[in-house]
């Protein structure tokens, strides 16, 4: 059962281990504490936003606006002097974007690619408006949450654990979680069984946008400033991470463990590119190729997404 619904296979589990092994052997600096801390920090944002992408993928959707949401959330906390107020603004932003995306997809029947591409472009514009060039300053209180360690555990790991636990509770301990899987498998059948498909879909997009906000705030806090293009690459990278983790983009199949392996794999590949001194431009090319490979390797009935 679990394999059928989680999408986790030996390949998805082996990929990050294999990459770790290769990097540990071939890249001299890989195991240095400084680099490892760096990798954890990089993967944290990707993991958090990918967990959100998982929610949307489960209902057979896709959210390309997460990158812009991250950027705009980062710009908001970097420009607001009061960190609490900045957070509230950013979370309200996530809520609004999620509702808009969800209603557009579930009520207006707009294809999720188009709907979220539209909001992504819209929000990117807003981000430039809030903060035209990288800058601003994130309040020290927030900064201290993203760096250093608490009780001997690096703070980024705590962010990851907290978000994963939240999503786990949502997916496996709540009725909504079961309904997400149901809607993703067959929306009409779920509807006939009394599942409120519109509500469930909107909830998935809201959850995704809120997690993107968290990822954006984390990233801004880590670099201590805002950047209107900070999240740009995360839209497609989160989709790639999710696909690498065995999540079926056609809906109904996916797991937190899978997303974790996917985000780890992608993060390790990125780190490898840095360590080996490969052109950073290749990173984008590689992400695209990986997404294609991951989607092609999925067993599914409908060719397409």
């Amino acid at each position, binding site marked *: *059962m679990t394999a*059928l*619904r989680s999408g986790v296979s030996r390949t998805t589990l082996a990929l990050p281990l294999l990459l770790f092994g290769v990097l540990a052997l071939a890249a001299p600096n890989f195991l240095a504490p400084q680099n490892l801390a760096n990798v954890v920090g990089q993967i944290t944002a990707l993991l958090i936003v990918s967990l959100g992408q998982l929610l949307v993928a489960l209902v057979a959707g896709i959210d390309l606006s997460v990158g812009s949401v991250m950027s705009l959330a980062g710009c908001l906390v970097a420009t607001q002097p009061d960190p609490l107020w900045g957070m509230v603004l950013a979370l309200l932003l996530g809520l609004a974007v999620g509702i808009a995306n969800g209603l557009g997809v579930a009520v207006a029947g707009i294809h999720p690619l188009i709907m979220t591409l539209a909001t992504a472009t819209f929000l990117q514009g807003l981000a430039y408006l809030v903060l035209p060039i990288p800058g601003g300053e994130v309040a020290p209180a927030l900064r201290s949450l993203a760096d250093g360690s608490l009780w001997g555990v690096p703070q980024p790991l705590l962010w990851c654990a907290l978000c994963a636990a939240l999503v786990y*509770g949502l997916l*496996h*301990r*709540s*009725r909504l*979680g*079961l*309904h997400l*899987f*149901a809607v*993703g*498998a*067959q929306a*009409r*059948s*779920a*509807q*006939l*069984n*009394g*599942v*409120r498909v519109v509500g469930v879909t909107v909830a998935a997009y809201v959850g995704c946008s809120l997690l993107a906000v968290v990822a954006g705030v984390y990233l801004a806090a880590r670099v201590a400033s805002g950047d209107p293009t900070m999240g740009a690459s995360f839209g497609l990278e989160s989709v790639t991470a999710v696909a690498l983790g065995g999540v079926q983009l056609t809906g*109904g*199949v996916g797991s937190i463990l899978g997303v974790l392996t996917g985000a780890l794999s992608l993060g390790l590949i990125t780190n490898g590119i840095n360590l080996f001194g490969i052109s950073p431009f290749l990173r984008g090319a590689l992400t695209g190729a990986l997404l294609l490979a991951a989607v092609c390797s999925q067993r599914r009935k409908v060719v397409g997404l």
Partner: protein
Amino acid sequence: MQPSARTMPDTVGHVTTQDNRPDLVVLESVSKRFGSTAALQDVSLRGCAGSIHAITGENGAGKSTLMKLLAGVHQPDAGQIRVAGQVLRLRSPAAARAAGISTVFQELTVLPNLTVAENLLLGREPSRAGLLDRAAMRAEAQAVLARIGIGLDPQRPGGSLTVGEQQLVEIAKGVSTDAQVFIFDEPTAPLNRAEVDKLEQLLHTLKAQGKLVFYISHRLDEIFRLCDTVTVLKDGRWVATEPIAALTHDRLIALMVGRPLQALFPPRAGTPPGAPALDVRNLTPLAGAASARLQLRRGEIVGMGGLEGQGQREIVRALAGALRPAACDIQRHGRDGQPQAYDPRLGVAQAVRQGIGLVPEDRKQEGLYLDLPIADNLWLGVLRGLGLVRQAPRQRAVVSGMAEQLQLRASSLAQEVGELSGGNQQKVMIGRWLAAGVDTLLVEQPTRGVDVGAKAEIYSLLRAFVAQGGAVLALSSDLPELIGLCDRILVVRGGRVVGDVPAASATEEGLLALALVDAPAAAAEVPGVMAEVAA
């Protein structure tokens, strides 16, 4: 639409019927349109507690639509629905369920990625403090399955269930809902005989508990065995509501069809069959499986039946080239009588080129282009025989001639096939192969989802086809159909043809005995596999 309907005081809700039981459900003058088609026009219906009420009629008569109004799937354009005297506006299936109406839909809604337990309780999961109570869920599912007597593991994923098992889950889901009104939309189609018996017991229990059961079916023997009252619809209009005791089979058929039915099955051919259209000396559909031998001659309709999953479907699919057989040795005589080799491993296109067409069981998915007009669907048969860049002849004459031959009932040849009734869709499917000039038809479930009137027309179509030198192999899980339609019946067990019975002397009992592993007594020891005469 009718703001007054929500609050209107009820004055006539508890009108009693002649047997003095109060009406639990009243549908009053309901109408429903889909686009330009009127699915229901001014239909009224009363159902009283403690009864089983059959809703019947030909396909497209509006049975399912009527019940979907009550199930909250569709909302009526006009008219009102009262349950226990209360005027209800059912905006969603969830709302109907909350109003005490439980529905087993005709379409299977079991989700492949949920377990049996999750499927059973979807939409009404037990929860504690807002969190899913998985232990309670398992226990409840276990209890429901045990009470109904279904031996299914509640932890099995829905995707691993057979169609019959999925239907059992649907039934369990419907029956276990705490409701006053139960709707079953053709629940027995995928069930074997033992499971049908079980379902009938359940329905009687519900009736004894004072529930109202609406039972949609066009299987007459079921209606007569089970139901108290019958409502007949035709073309979206109410025709009659009668107590079952006042009806005979013939009278009910006449009500459904609107005209007396000629003999359902056309007479068999008087002449002996000709040369073999397919002489299958060896056909092994899957590596390691048994190999089948059979002969299909021109001028005859050969039936094929057996227990569910005995490999008969694979044989037909392999013959058609839709499934690549592991091994085969097949001879064929063309229309000119010349022998030729036939190798289904070369694929469907080659099979069609050699004059062999498959009418698939799932014609909507595998056969027809539902959103293309009738003309294009038929025309495709002609195009198949041509090269890619050959200029096609004018289509109109061919297509309209074919439509006439098929006795298609459609507003025009430009109508989308998806809008047609099951019977007319099946005719288009067969017509496509006739247009392509095939001389051998492999037909899976010739009349599944086809109403009584169209059944007879499809049977005569097939009979006329073989009378002109064609050959038909018909795979069916409907024993009376096999016996009535065919000249010979092949019984398949374990991938082998174990019986070849002349249909004229075949009986259902005899075919069953052949299909079962040993004698029927031996099969009865294995619960659940009894009498699964299905393809």
